[in-house]
């Protein structure tokens, strides 16, 4: 179980847990720390989090499955979140989303055969002035058009996740 995170990182988390007002407050941070190393949070990740916080795996699971930026299934190297809320919708997000599905040859929720991209919808990214918008990893892209999406995909393909 401890192979999920390096010993130093576990020690660092334990220190932050000890300093927290309540250990449980750290739950999202731990889940995201595991995800940062493994791209997603496996059952073992849930157990490790529970162990560190003195919770049951179920108590962790009900939090992990609640948030949509905690992935409980394997995802590709880069997760594309396309905003489908009203402002982006009003400026053509449906066409952008369709174009992405076509270009990547996957449906929403799927991962490309090369394991590079996973495509998911997201609610409002707080980038309404730049709609249609999407995020790839932590990078925000706005004012999207199908042509611009092609350029972005080419560029993202060419570099590793930072």
């Amino acid at each position, binding site marked *: 179980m401890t192979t999920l995170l390096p010993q130093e990182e576990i020690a660092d988390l334990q220190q932050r847990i000890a300093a927290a*007002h*309540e*250990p*449980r*407050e*750290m*739950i*999202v*941070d731990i*889940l*995201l720390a595991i995800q940062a190393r493994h791209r997603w949070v496996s059952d073992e990740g849930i157990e490790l989090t529970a162990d560190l*916080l003195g919770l049951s795996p179920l108590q962790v699971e*009900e*939090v992990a499955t*609640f*948030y*949509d*930026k*905690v992935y409980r299934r394997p995802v590709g190297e880069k997760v594309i979140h396309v905003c*489908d*809320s*009203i*402002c982006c*919708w*009003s*400026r053509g997000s449906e066409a952008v989303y369709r174009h992405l599905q076509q270009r990547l040859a996957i449906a929403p929720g799927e991962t490309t055969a090369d394991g590079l991209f996973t495509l998911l919808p*997201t*609610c*409002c*990214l*707080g*980038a*309404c*002035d*730049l*709609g249609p918008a999407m*995020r790839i990893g*932590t990078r*925000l892209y706005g004012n999207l058009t199908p042509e611009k999406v092609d350029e972005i995909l080419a560029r993202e393909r060419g570099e590793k996740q930072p």
Partner: protein
Amino acid sequence: MSNLLFKNRHPGTTTFLDGYRNTGGYQGLEKALREMTPAEIRDLVKASGLRGRGGAGFSTGLKWSFFPVDMPGDKYLVCNGDEMEPGTFKDRTLLEADPHQLVEGIVIAAYALHISTGFIFLRHAYSQARANLERAITEAREAGLIGRNILGTDFSFELLIHGSAGRYICGEETGLLNGLEGKRPNPRSKPPFPAVKGLFAKPTLLNNVETLANVQHIVIGGAEWFSGLARTEEGAGTKLFCLSGHLNRTGCIELPLGIPLGELVEEHGGGVWQDRRFKACLPGGASTPYLTAEHFDTPMDYAPLEAVKTRLGTGGLVVFDDRTCMVAATLNLQRFFARESCGWCTPCRDGLPMVCWVLEKIERGEGTAEDLEMLRGLVKNINGRTFCALALGAMGPVDGLLRHFEQELVDHIKLGRCPLKQG
């Protein structure tokens, strides 16, 4: 005039401590801690007429007056930075431009309310805002503006950031508290209200980012000056308006509260894009009932908007041009709310998908007069029957659709297709 919160906003850069101080930053905190008692600050904020900028619009001073300041033991201040209302990006814009605006406001609020620990609850997508806040908090700590014995007084205060992982319901104050505690962020039933039993069951004050960022300006300028900033008699202060949708110029802009809707659209939004006509707007984010061009003279302020059966909400104006199908737009909004429902109570969890189902049917051209009645019934039966305001907010645009665009719904049903769909 009107830049208070955005006075240090320069495109492409962030203002940190030196720049913030160059324009008078932390003079409000100095004045508050050296010249004013906590009670004086609370009275001042109440007299200023400041109302919550996060959506509900409750009087900030009144909220503070309910807070048990003299209760011994832990008390918390929680800043709600889970900005996720579609059409809203003011907190992001503020924190990307000038994070100390928030930090100073929080420290003064904490002093006024005898609070020694604060949390900023920040949404997952705002990584730049988070980095800025982390740096601003570090700077403030090193300068003696946060931590033990602030500015050499006996007031001490710690400020922490809680990063979330993406759910709209976390913006609901009790859902947020559960999330911050590391529990599943379902809302709690009220009472008890957070002021009595909030974070870790302790008295907790919750305010929005923009609300708190106004506090130091009120301390410096005074209540009368602050309320005079608005263009309406009853209004107070400026507002960060977010412009999006079918406008020529989108973006976030600080303007006096009470600016007429038409002026906001034409002058600041540059009018409707592609030489089209204005059809409707969400005046204050996804959960506020639509307005039409008939309302161009309506001041964008809390009371005047309530008078036309909508709300200022977050100040997120989303404009729709005359080619927009309002049934389709409302359906998009309902899908958002249905997906973001936390599932805790039945009218929201099961009711919102039913609203989607009816709207989908009407939009496809398969709707009947009975479906229209069902839609009315759903609004009536969902409103007021849930723990939190998510479903109530969801019904806002449906209510607006039924009031302002009933004919468009009827046309869908009569024609057996969407009258606005091309080809």
